[in-house]
């Protein structure tokens, strides 16, 4: 990762496979209690106001975590990919969640039931340490998100969103698919509306910083996009 990529990576999470990080005796117990849930594209995994059933681990696919504002607009806070884990944050404090999670591609998700998870957290200091560190890192990412939404004007938010989605959702070494989410999802990640996003994309295309090809947005000049993102 270059310096530029490292800066961008402060704004999203990229996880190692969960099961590799946990000692095998614990993995064995947890695995026996883990169920597997297929989630279809467009399906809601959970809704605001519920306490999650357990800890969700993404095995495959992409999901979005979002809130809905007073005007009914969706605001995406996180785009999840493989290996990301969610739900545990609310289980630990027994709080209902404040957000929705919806699959934007067909997904495979693993679920560790709440009671099993909480029991194992008490028994296994390795599991506890793992979640402690992970939780701390996630809060660090969230602090960066605050500055993103609180201070950045729309052109910077769009530039940073493109950089982050491009970096997170393309596998290194493979041919880049650019940013391949719907315009609506990209707009909702940037905290803006589709019309404003389109206007920004037009400016960036004219400057030869990005190339729009149907739904895909390819980054032609990462350095200049990074300068616009101003992080």
């Amino acid at each position, binding site marked *: 990762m270059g310096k530029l990529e490292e800066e961008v990576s*402060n704004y999203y999470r990229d996880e190692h496979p969960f099961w590799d990080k946990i000692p095998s005796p614990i993995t064995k117990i947890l695995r026996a209690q883990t169920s597997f849930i297929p989630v279809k594209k467009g399906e809601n995994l959970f809704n605001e106001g519920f306490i999650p059933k357990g800890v969700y681990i993404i095995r495959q696919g992409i999901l979005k975590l979002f809130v809905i504002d007073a005007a009914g607009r969706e*605001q995406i806070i996180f785009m999840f990919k493989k290996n990301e884990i969610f739900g545990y*944050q609310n289980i630990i*404090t027994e709080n209902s969640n404040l957000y929705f999670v919806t699959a934007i591609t067909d997904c495979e998700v693993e679920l560790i039931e709440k009671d099993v998870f909480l029991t194992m*957290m008490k028994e296994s200091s390795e599991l506890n340490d793992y979640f402690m560190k992970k939780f701390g890192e996630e809060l*660090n990412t969230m602090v960066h998100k605050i500055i993103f*939404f609180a201070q*950045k004007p729309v052109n910077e938010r769009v530039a940073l969103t493109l950089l982050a989605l491009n970096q997170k959702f393309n596998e290194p070494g493979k041919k880049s698919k650019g940013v391949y989410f719907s315009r609506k999802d990209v707009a909702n990640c940037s905290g803006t509306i589709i019309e404003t996003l389109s206007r920004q994309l037009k400016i960036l295309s004219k400057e030869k910083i990005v190339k729009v090809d149907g739904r895909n947005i390819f980054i032609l000049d990462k350095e200049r996009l990074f300068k616009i993102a*101003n*992080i």
Partner: protein
Amino acid sequence: MTEIEKEIANYYLIPELIWDKIPIDTVEKMRENLTVANFKKDEQIYTEGFHPRGLYIVKKGIAKQFLISNEGKEQIIYMLKPGNMFGYRSIVCNNASFLHVTAIQDCEIEIIGKDTFVKYFNESNEIKLFFLNYFGMEFRVLFNKISFFATKPVTERVALTLLILNQKFEIYTNDKNGITFTRTDLACFAGTINETLSRQLTILEKEDIIELRGRAILIKDKERLFKIANI
């Protein structure tokens, strides 16, 4: 707490003293190695890139924890009062801090050295659980802040800022003068600039919702301010 106050409390960290939550013999051992540091108003407690010396607990005074944007603008994440802690996340995640902490009043801070903290952290399940829970609370606060900044215009941000700071600090400061933070700090908390903040304050004063007495801001009509905050 009234319903309104409960809603507002979702947006700040309610101090929870670690000493009340862990076994008394651990408390005594940890406190043997405790140092007390004094910081003058406006003095930096630490800066970005610094490895915190341990767990910091505010004993007296108020400090702000903030990020600095590329343009040098502050974004205040937390206003800390007695009982609030900081520094622990860098230790748990083993990274340098990317936040700054500065005293905005004369402060007395208790510091539990890193080695002591790590030792007892690893030995005591109660301490781990305490911090896991604390992370859970932080998650809720940061998540609420992100969705707030992502979806709310400046009028609502200013209203909520006044409500949060008033509620968090009114009992502690115990004076009838209301909020006495500088205008710059208020703007950096709300994610806006001084001029916009002043304009919003003038509007609120005209509506008889607040009263401006020099630097102090007195909330006269909490109900209406809450309606404007629209949470």
